[in-house]
């Protein structure tokens, strides 16, 4: 492809938020008809940059040119009008509306909202091989299909420049290949793709050009043929990326968590967790691999007692958990790093020390002992111990390197990585026997990521049993002693993390190699 003008040019883009500079002096030129990757670690400022390019935020300084013309983008509508479309990391779809309604929303003027629009959607779907059915409800679609709806949404509006924000985060390797096939198709049709990622292998395989962002600014632009993944990592974080790996095995034969024939049904009676049996031993990290939405969340909630069991038994050591309230389970020694820390892990508007109490309301140092209680045992009192948990919060902040001026600031004012470190520190308190870690390093910077992995390794050596759920296959393979695969609520396979590759794991996750051990 040889076009004279670059499709997009960004010069000197700077964006400040209260107290922080998210972007400064960003310079990027994206040639038309290419796949241009923008890489950087979590928190480097990629998303802010893309929001600026899509008109969702306005830069404080700098210029944007589209096809050689300087533009001011005040809203997504402006961006759409200039032929820029965006596929968001978190899908922007309304579950209760049909695919058709989701696609035509905001672009009703193009082909109406009825038959003409339906025909046009089928046309585009066929042209790019997207396989999208206009009359399905979005809530009935899987992750991959939703992403294709998102891409179709953008194409429907006649976009010439597509921004894809971390599109592979929720996909298995096979789906990633599929997506890359779609992207190459788009490129052949003359479209420009801006691809944001922090996964270096993927970037090297699909991009024509790679721009690296670090701490809010562009540090280099390279061609994939000229660099290795390792060099790219150095550019991205200034050092090597932390590697998820376990050293010698610490697995014992003392079972900590035993699940036997556990089944959970949703309101419609469908089994979302279907006859799951597994055992986690002291010193063992058991990883659950699976495409998101295959019952991982429900499995976790069943163990935590947030969902009732339809059948089966769950035991912690010798204690039967079935029917026990969530609080009693936590008291029995379960720590919980939830998947969505904002919804399930923190009181965002409360100070850090109040967040220390959360999930540990009945245990020292948060409550004063009841009169009958001794120094360690006994029933918890009804009063909270402000001094106790304040000083313990100080301990967590110190030991887990939570970067904060003091413990009186609200949880919302910390960065994602520091929030997550606070949660990890809290959940490791009171000596848990079992830790449920759902996506423990999602959306955190590499520093926090490597720290969290260190804590997991350390706790495992001390005999902690860990249930690890992650969409990051490298993390899953590197950090697990045992791997199980979940598909449609069933455990369909077991894999040896020492030998399996992400590709193989991916086919297990999609059911291609159902039942067989890799």
């Amino acid at each position, binding site marked *: 492809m040889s076009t004279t003008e670059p499709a997009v040019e960004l010069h000197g883009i700077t964006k400040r938020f209260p107290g922080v500079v998210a972007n400064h002096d960003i310079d990027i030129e994206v040639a038309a008809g290419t796949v241009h990757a923008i890489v950087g670690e979590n928190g480097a400022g990629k998303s802010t940059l893309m929001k600026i390019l899509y008109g*969702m935020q306005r830069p404080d300084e700098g210029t944007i040119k589209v096809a050689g013309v300087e533009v001011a983008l005040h809203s*997504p509508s402006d961006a759409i009008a200039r032929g820029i479309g965006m596929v968001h990391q978190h899908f*922007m779809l309304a579950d209760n509306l*049909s695919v058709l309604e*989701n696609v035509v929303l*905001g672009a009703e003027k193009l082909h109406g909202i009825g038959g003409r629009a339906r025909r046009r959607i089928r046309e585009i779907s066929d042209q790019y*091989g997207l396989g999208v059915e206009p009359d399905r409800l979005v809530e009935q679609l899987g992750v991959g299909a939703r992403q294709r709806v998102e891409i179709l949404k953008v194409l429907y509006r006649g976009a010439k420049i597509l921004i894809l924000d971390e599109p592979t985060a929720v996909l298995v390797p096979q789906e990633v290949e599929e997506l890359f096939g779609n992207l190459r198709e788009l490129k052949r049709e003359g479209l420009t793709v801006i691809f944001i990622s922090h996964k270096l292998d993927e970037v090297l395989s699909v991009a024509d050009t790679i721009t690296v962002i670090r701490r809010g600014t562009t540090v280099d632009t390279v061609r994939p043929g000229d660099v290795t993944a390792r060099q790219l990592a150095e550019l991205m974080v200034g050092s090597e990326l932390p590697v998820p790996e376990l050293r010698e095995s610490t697995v014992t034969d003392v079972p900590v968590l035993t699940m036997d024939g556990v089944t959970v049904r949703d309101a419609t009676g469908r089994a979302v967790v279907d006859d799951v049996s597994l055992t986690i031993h002291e010193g063992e990290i058991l990883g659950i691999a699976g*495409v998101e*939405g295959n019952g991982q969340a429900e499995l976790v909630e069943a163990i935590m007692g947030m969902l009732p069991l339809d059948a089966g038994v769950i035991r912690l050591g010798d204690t039967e958990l079935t029917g026990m309230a969530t609080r009693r389970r936590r008291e029995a020694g379960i720590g919980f790093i939830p998947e969505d820390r904002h919804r399930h892990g923190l009181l965002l508007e409360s100070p850090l020390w109040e967040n220390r109490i959360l999930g540990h309301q009945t245990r020292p140092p948060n409550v004063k002992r009841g009169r009958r209680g001794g120094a360690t045992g006994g029933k918890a009192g009804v009063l909270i111990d402000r001094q106790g948990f304040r000083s313990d919060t100080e301990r967590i902040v110190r030991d887990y390197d939570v970067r904060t001026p003091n413990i009186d600031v609200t949880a919302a004012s910390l960065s994602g990585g520091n929030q997550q470190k606070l949660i990890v520190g809290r959940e490791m308190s009171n000596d848990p026997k079992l830790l449920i870690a759902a996506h423990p390093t999602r959306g955190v910077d590499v520093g926090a990521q490597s720290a969290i992995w260190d804590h997991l390794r350390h706790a495992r050596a001390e005999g902690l049993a860990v249930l690890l759920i992650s969409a990051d296959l490298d993390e899953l393979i590197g950090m697990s002693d045992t791997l199980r695969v979940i598909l449609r609520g069933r455990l369909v396979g077991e894999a040896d993390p020492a030998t399996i590759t992400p590709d193989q794991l991916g086919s297990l996750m999609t059911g291609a190699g159902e039942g067989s051990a890799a």
Partner: protein
Amino acid sequence: MIEQEIRTPAPDTGDRERRRTRVLVVGGGIFVALILLRLITGESDITSSGTMGATLALAVPIGMAALGGMWSERSGVINIGLEGMMTFGTWGAAFASYFSGNPWLGLLGGIVAGAVGGLLHAVATVTFGVDHIVSGVAINILAPGVTRYLSDLLFTDEKGGGATQSPPLPSFPTWSVPGVGKPLGSLEKHHWILVSDLAGLVRGVLTDLSPITLLGILLVPVSYYLLWRTAFGLRLRSCGENPVAAESLGVKVYRMKYSAVVISGALAGIGGVFLAMVASSNYQEGQVNGRGYIGLAAMIFGNWRPGMVAGGAGLFGYTDALQLRGGAGAVHAMLLLIGIGLLALAVWRGYRRRVLAAVISTVVAVGVLVWFFLTDALPREIVTYSPHITTLLVLAFAAQRLRMPAADGMRYRRGGGH
């Protein structure tokens, strides 16, 4: 292509067809049950044209509130303030019609007053992100104060007016479908099974109609058309389902929510107009009497869809009509129906092996039946509140498989998506 279909695909072709059939079956079933009840108990008011006419009339204000609630909540804004907006509507209708002498200007006045209440709610919830229920409650506290002050200021010096009521207002003309009233009326007097009941139903619905009633009925399909068949409606509903997604596609979320809540207030205002000018001949303080809230219940009962919402309004209108017209006897007869209905529910639940629910239903059912057989009439003081009791019962016993808009009641800030 890798298909990751993790959810059982629910076929949605024929879904609407089935829904329509179900509505017809349920409606017909209820009507037959009412006829039987009339035969058993001899309370002719259960299906009389008077009751049916009153049902329609009383369903209008509740239905307007319910439609208003639906508009607002479809855009994601919970509207507890409907009660207050209806109050504004009653006063606005009185003010405009009395001082102009024209009932149609009264309609306009009520709509505007209700819409102003809606606007206030929109400013608080959409622009300032105040909790929707807090803002709604505040409006419900505001409305009686404002109307009392204004009445004191404007109505006390008028003949027949005062701080708590307006002077008599001009009335709307009423329309009847010609050639229906007389023959059906005589048919009805015979108390023949089914024939007389149907005559009562038809006569009640087709005679002495006020234009506001017609307007109210018309607004049901109009709401459906606007919300489900136009681009505007799609945009509005998308704000109630996923406002962040809507914004990312260039939908002006604030503008949509403002429109929805103002329309919601205007609809509640029409309900107020009806109360002040059709159901009664002047504005009176406390006239709304909880109908805004009952409307919300009708909306929930109707699963946020216009047809079902209208059905819910009809149900509550019927109980209201029955207590007004049939009084203690007819409502007492209803106990039999409720008792038998609950027993049937208990059997169904037992069949589905939901033991606890079945036991509770049985106990309540037996209690109601015992009450029916041991008494001849219900206390007048309690009967007055039968619409409210019905609301509670319906919400407690109706199926809870409801689908409210996904982002209903959530605070949304422009650019809030990450």
